[in-house]
Structure formats: C-alpha cells, structure tokens
C-alpha cells in the first residue's frame, strides 16, 4: 500500500460491499485520507485522523479506521466524527454539519481502550452488550445492534444478545 490512492481503492471496495459512502467533497475527502495515510505510516496502523493516537496499537484498537463509533454516529448524526463516512441525509444537507460529539469515552483517551473481554468482565451495567447476527454469526459489542450487519447486510431485527456466560 504505497500511495493514498492505493489505500483508498481498498477502502472503496469494502465500503461498496458494505453499503457505506464517503464524503463527496473532494477537498475534505483528500485531507481525511491523507491524515489517515500519515497515521498508518507513522504508527503502523490507521488510527483515526481526527483523534489523538497513543501510538500503542492495543490502546487505540477502538479508533482504528473504521472506528468502533462510526456506525452509531452515522445513525445518529449522518456522519462519522471525521466526516469520512456520511449518509444520504448528511449529503443532502438535512443533518447539521457542525462538529458531532465524541462518542469515545474520555477515559479511553487517558488509559487506552480496555478491550472487549475486559469490558464484559468488569460487569459494569453501563458496558456495551455483545450482539450476534443470527444470519452470519458476526459479533459486535455496542449499546445497540447495527442497523445493518456489516458482513451480510441482515437487518437489525436479526441480531440477538449474545451471552458470555
């Protein structure tokens, strides 16, 4: 992956398969992609360009693009934090283009991402549930299942809570 273009080609392929779309403003898109590419090269992983990275991959696991917060932000605000991924309403100007709130908990910026098993193991009621797509078996930890399974495109209703016990 030598160039920004090469990186974007790969991202586009996945986005097309999964039904995501990119920011249509070429200037902004180029800036975001350049930022992501810079991070990939200095850290060795594609950390979110508009968040501060720790430089330690385990601590930044949740903010490697596409980050864990993208889908929830797309549903709520029509864009991800960087506005790399956007939806139709955002493009049509039906959603505000003001900055959106940070969904990543502040403590992750200070202590790093705790990892999924630790989150469940902590037994905290605020912790995300694990949901399983009953169609393809895809697992994700979040407050709600995604609207569409990113793997097989099954609808939200096809997800069930996944017991860890």
């Amino acid at each position: 992956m030598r160039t920004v273009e090469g990186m974007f080609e790969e991202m586009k392929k996945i986005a097309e398969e999964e039904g995501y779309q990119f920011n249509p403003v070429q200037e902004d898109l180029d800036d975001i992609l350049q930022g992501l590419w810079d991070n990939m090269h200095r850290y060795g992983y594609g950390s979110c360009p508009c968040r501060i990275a720790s430089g330690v991959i385990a601590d930044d696991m949740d903010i490697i693009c596409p980050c864990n917060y993208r889908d929830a932000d797309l549903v709520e605000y029509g864009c991800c934090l960087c506005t790399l991924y956007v939806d139709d309403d955002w493009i049509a100007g039906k959603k505000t283009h003001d900055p959106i709130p940070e969904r990543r908990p502040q403590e992750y910026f200070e202590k790093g991402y705790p990892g999924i098993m630790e989150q469940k193991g902590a037994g905290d009621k605020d912790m995300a549930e694990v949901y399983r797509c009953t169609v393809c078996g895809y697992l994700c930890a979040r407050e709600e299942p995604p609207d569409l399974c990113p793997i097989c495109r099954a609808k939200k209703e096809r997800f069930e809570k996944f017991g860890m016990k």
Partner: protein
Amino acid sequence: MNKARPMLYTLSTCVHCKATKRFFKSQGIIYDFIDVDKLEGREKEDVRSEMIRLSGTVRFPTIVIGDTVIVGFYEDKIRAALGL
C-alpha cells in the same frame, strides 16, 4: 475583543483542524497553534494535561480565545469570541 493571540490545539492529520486554520487565515487573524500529534514524550503529555485542564477533554481542534475555550470547529462560536 481579546488582545491575546488565539491559541489552537490541533492535529496535523485532522480535517476539522485544517478547516479551523483556514478560517482564521481567511479572516486575517494571527494565531498560535500546536500540532499535538507532532510532539513526543513528556512534551506531548504536558500539552494533553493542559488541554484536559482547559476543557476536560482532548478533542481537536481546541480553540482558546481569551477566556473562551471552544472544542470543535464551530464557526459561529469562534466569530462571537473574536467579535467578528
């Protein structure tokens, strides 16, 4: 209007930070900035603590205009703080 130069805490990779700098330039306003991702070690930690003191978080851009701390590129808030 505040006399001190506005201070921008930014990331070199962040599209919103770039837009903020462009906005200040377009208004002909001289500002200071730190690209926090370009710092290392102790220096980076110090600036992060400074940001947490200012706003309670480490989000980008964080814009300090006099006593006003703005987290995020809110053009209207920036205009108001600058008296534009």
